[in-house]
């Protein structure tokens, strides 16, 4: 989930504590020590405080959450925490009618995002990269949804999908008894309805990432391929796309993260009711509220964490290996 902060922590942790005792002895030896005691103190403070906060707010809570996944707890007093072993997971996998649909929907979310808005974003980026007229206007128009928060997008698309008064049903007259299209409620439709909204936003996001990648390509590559007589498609296929490899990796990771953390749009849309269940929504529904099932909710959170790790760890390993090689 938190790639950024996770990669930061090893460095942060490796900063030594202020070594006050040995400092004067070494300082006498010459000019090799660049940092004064004061500098070291400042550095320790600057690295130490974030480290403590990071460990307390990210690691400690993550570990506590994993521990709580093996308990039941209603959140009232620490005395009511009861160890139940794997029971939460057993209930989750065997008896929760919403769990497997939620997993499935998270996967569908990823597949749709990678298959539709991602290539479309790439297509738009390639077009905009040609410096066509009004390129800035198009760029802004496509990128605008990314600036708006997902919750707002949810509200806006609800107005479009509202079965009685929404734009679509009003236009096509599908709000009368007999031929009624319930975009938000029908479990066969609603996930796809939400995904249209999510894709609408994701396209702009992908476009900007690819545009940045394309701007970084050496123009001499294009010239060379033009001199070799390659047409536009051939240039794209054999020259441009292969050089976009680093961008593709980022795009893949971003899309995976987007599909795992999908929440706000659906929560606003219909709170993850029939047809739009998501893991993140199940976690929230179980944990937040007046008599919470904190242990059970944590178990779902742990499942989500494991899925995230399965995806993130190979990426981190590959990145670190590359850095070491260079």
């Amino acid at each position, binding site marked *: *989930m*938190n790639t950024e902060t996770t990669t930061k922590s090893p460095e942060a942790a490796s900063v030594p504590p202020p070594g006050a005792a040995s400092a004067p002895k070494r300082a006498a030896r010459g000019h090799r020590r660049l940092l004064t005691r004061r500098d070291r103190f400042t550095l320790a403070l600057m690295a130490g405080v974030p480290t403590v906060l990071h460990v307390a*707010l*990210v690691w*400690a*809570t*993550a570990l*506590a*959450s994993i*521990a*709580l996944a093996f308990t039941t707890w*209603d*959140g*009232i*007093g620490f005395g009511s925490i009861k160890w139940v072993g794997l029971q939460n997971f057993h*209930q989750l996998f065997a*008896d*929760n*009618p919403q769990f497997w649909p939620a997993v499935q929907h998270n996967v569908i979310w990823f597949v749709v995002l990678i298959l539709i808005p991602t290539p479309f974003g790439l297509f738009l980026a390639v077009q905009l990269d040609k410096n066509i007229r009004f390129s800035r206007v198009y760029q802004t128009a496509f990128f605008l949804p990314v600036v708006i928060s997902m*919750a707002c997008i949810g509200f806006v698309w609800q107005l479009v999908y509202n*079965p*009685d*008064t929404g734009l679509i049903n009003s236009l096509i007259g599908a709000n009368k*008894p*007999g031929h009624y*299209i*319930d975009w*938000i*409620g*029908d*479990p066969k439709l*609603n996930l796809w309805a939400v995904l249209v909204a999510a894709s609408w936003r994701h396209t702009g996001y992908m476009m900007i990432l690819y545009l940045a990648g394309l701007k970084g390509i050496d123009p001499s590559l294009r010239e060379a391929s033009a001199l070799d007589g390659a047409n536009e498609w051939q240039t794209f296929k054999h020259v441009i796309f292969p050089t976009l490899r680093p961008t593709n990796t980022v795009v893949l990771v971003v899309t995976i993260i987007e599909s795992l*953390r999908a*929440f*706000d749009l659906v929560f*606003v849309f*219909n*709170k993850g*009711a*029939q047809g739009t*269940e998501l893991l*993140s929504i199940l*976690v*929230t*529904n*179980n*944990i*937040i*509220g*007046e*008599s*919470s*099932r*904190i*242990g059970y*909710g*944590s178990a779902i*959170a742990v499942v*989500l*964490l494991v899925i995230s790790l399965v995806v993130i760890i190979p990426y981190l390993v590959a990145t670190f290996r590359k850095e070491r090689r260079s």
Partner: protein
Amino acid sequence: MHLPLPGLSAPTPSRRTLLRGIGGAAALGAGIPLLSACGGSDAASDSKTVTVGSNASDAVPKKAFADVYAAFKKQSGLTVDVNTKDHNTFQEQINSYLQGTPDDVFNWFAGYRMQFFAAKKLATPIDDVWAKIGDNFPDAMKKLSKGEDGKYYFVPMTTYPWAVFYRKSVFQQYGYKVPTTWDELVALCKQMKKDKLVPIAFGDKDAWPAMGTFDQINFRLNGYDFHVQLMAGKASWTDAKVKATFDHWAELLPYHQDGFMGRTWQDAAQTLVAKKAGMYLLGTFVAQQFTNKDDLDDLDFFPFPEINSAYGQDTVEAPTDGLMVSKAPKNHAGVLKLLEYMGSPAAEELYLKGDPSVVAASSKADTSAYSALQKKAFDMIGGAKTLTQFMDRDSRPDFTSTVMQPGLQKFLQNPKGVDSLLSSIERQKKQIFATA
């Protein structure tokens, strides 16, 4: 989120909260008590002040409560220090709020939700208050204010019934008669369909309205006692009686408004306002959607028809709001005085003057200022043999929100799959109630 109250949309948790929810659920559990501890007021330590934690964050009830507290100050010399929180936030944080340093008195709901915190020893029994105010309330209200240990924990203030709403002019125009039995109801639905009306307006986007329909059919068919047993997790959801409830519901389902899963109750109410729908089963708050005075005067309701003659129409669903005392109030003497006052008909009359959308819980309150609708609601509650609250107030909220809300929606989508649905509900119920 789980409250059958009008006009409340759930706040969307920020992404940061969610990330932490995923990365560390414990952060929420451990973090909130710290935060809410800051909210506690120190002013409570002096004997001239009583602090109240209030969920009355909407303008109308907030003002109405303020008027009541001002009158109390005049009478007793005690100041009421109100700490108002957003209605939904109040509910979501109630757990940690009551464990931290809560105010002396707090707004809450009658029924299982009150009993839950009483059983967890997060509330103080107030039998001494009830010794003085007991005569002001009908027996059904007394029953609602007691914890499982038989002690009183709650002072009811206001309530409103659930019933079937209709427009007098529509019934007149088509010559319909108010149905009093199940067969009459079904026949009326059929007739309305012929007359090109939507027989029953319905919207279940917020997932709680369906619970109201279940409640009505279940206690009419199986009686109050069974309903309460079922809600308390004691009766089995695989019982043939529950199956019969769903069978009745399935019989009525074809007469419900199309596309209800994507419709809010407000939108459903609009079809009644527009005279496109014949009936609507909801709480009296449906009247808020009737903004035109003539329309409002045209609105009427009848109790849900009898299904089983053994129980008739003796039960009324009437969610009741009131006050409770936190576990260690700082000004105990002041709290007793305040609650005694709040349980008096005078306090309720004053409150209703500011907030006429509900009716008094006390049977002694003056009803002369009531609208016709309020008068009828008051009589219906006063005449009830037993009162229920609402599914999510009569049962464990974690069960109703994580199992029943999706469960009922599943039934509405696929009424034929009742058997497997009920056994799934029963399995999940056992797991949740086992963790008490």
